[in-house]
C-alpha cells in the first residue's frame, strides 16, 4: 500500500528552504543515531531495506511529526524490539518510572 515516504509528485508541500552553513548534524544525538544505525547494519542485526521499511511503517502521524533522525531512531528501536534484541520495557528510560 502506498506509504507516507513515497512523496514524488505529490502536491501540497511548500517551497524548499535552505539552511545557510548547515552543520553535518544539528545535535550530538543525531550523529550518535547515524553511527548506531551503521554499527547495527554492519553487525547484521538488520539490513538497510529492513531499516527503510521500519521507517515507512511508523504510524503516519508520528512519521510526519518527527524530524529526520527521530524517524531513524524510531526505526532502530522498532527493529531492536522486533528482532528480539531488547524487550520493549527495556527501551524505557529508567528515570521515567
Amino acid at each position, binding site marked *: 500500500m502506498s506509504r507516507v*515516504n*513515497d*512523496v*514524488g*509528485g*505529490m*502536491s*501540497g*508541500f*511548500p*517551497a*524548499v*528552504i*535552505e*539552511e545557510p552553513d*548547515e552543520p*553535518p*548534524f544539528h*545535535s*550530538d*544525538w543525531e*550523529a*550518535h*543515531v*547515524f*553511527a*548506531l544505525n*551503521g*554499527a*547495527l*547494519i*554492519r*553487525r547484521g*542485526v538488520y539490513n*538497510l531495506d529492513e531499516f*527503510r521499511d521500519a*521507517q515507512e511503517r511508523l504510524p503516519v502521524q508520528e512519521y510526519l*511529526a*518527527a*524530524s*529526520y533522525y*527521530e524517524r531513524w*531512531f524510531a526505526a*532502530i*528501536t522498532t527493529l*531492536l524490539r522486533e528482532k528480539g*534484541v*531488547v524487550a520493549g520495557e*527495556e*527501551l524505557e*528510560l*529508567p528515570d521515567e518510572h
Partner: protein
Amino acid sequence: MSDDHGSSVISAQVRHVESLLESRGLLDAGEIDTRIDEFLAGGSPANGARIVARAWVDPGFAERLLADANSAIREVGLSMAGGLQEQRLKVVANTEGEHNVVVCTLCSCYPIALLGPSPSWYKSEAYRSRVVRDPRGVLAEFGLELPAGTSIAVWDASAESRYMVLPRRPDGTEGLAEDELAARVTRKGLIGTAAV
C-alpha cells in the same frame, strides 16, 4: 519534538539504547565516537569538487568518469567503498542543452561516504515531492534560472546507485589551476540545484 527539552530526552534515550547494546555485546565501548569521527573526517563535498575539477582539465578522465565512475575516482584517490558496502556511483554531465538534477523521492539516498551528509533540504518532503514534477520551478527557487531551451533530466535515486552531477566548467576559468577550479564547485552544483 525538536525543542531543547525534546532534544535532551532523545539524547538520553539514544545513550540508553547504546548502553543496552553494549551490555549485549552488540556495540563496543567508544565505537560510536570512533565511527562519527571517521565519518566526519571522510566524506565531504570537497571530494566531489576534486573529481569535477579533474574532469574539467582532463577530458580523458571525464570520459572514464561518465563510463565507470567507481574506477575513475580511484585515480584521484577516492572510492565508493567507504560506507556499508561499495556502492555504484553514476555521474551525469551537464551540457549546453541539458541540465541534470538528483533526488531520492522514496527516502534520502545520497553518496554520503563520498560527499558527507546531505543537506536537510535534500531530505525534505518539499524537495523530494516537487522536483520530479516541476524541476524548473524548484531550481528557480534555488536561484537557478535555466534558459527555456535547456532540457532538464531528473534522476531519482530509487535503487542502489548513488548520483553526482558533473557541472559545466564556468566561462572565464581557462587560466585557473585544478585546485582553484575545485574551489568553485559547490555541493548544490554536485546535486544539480546550482550551475556549479
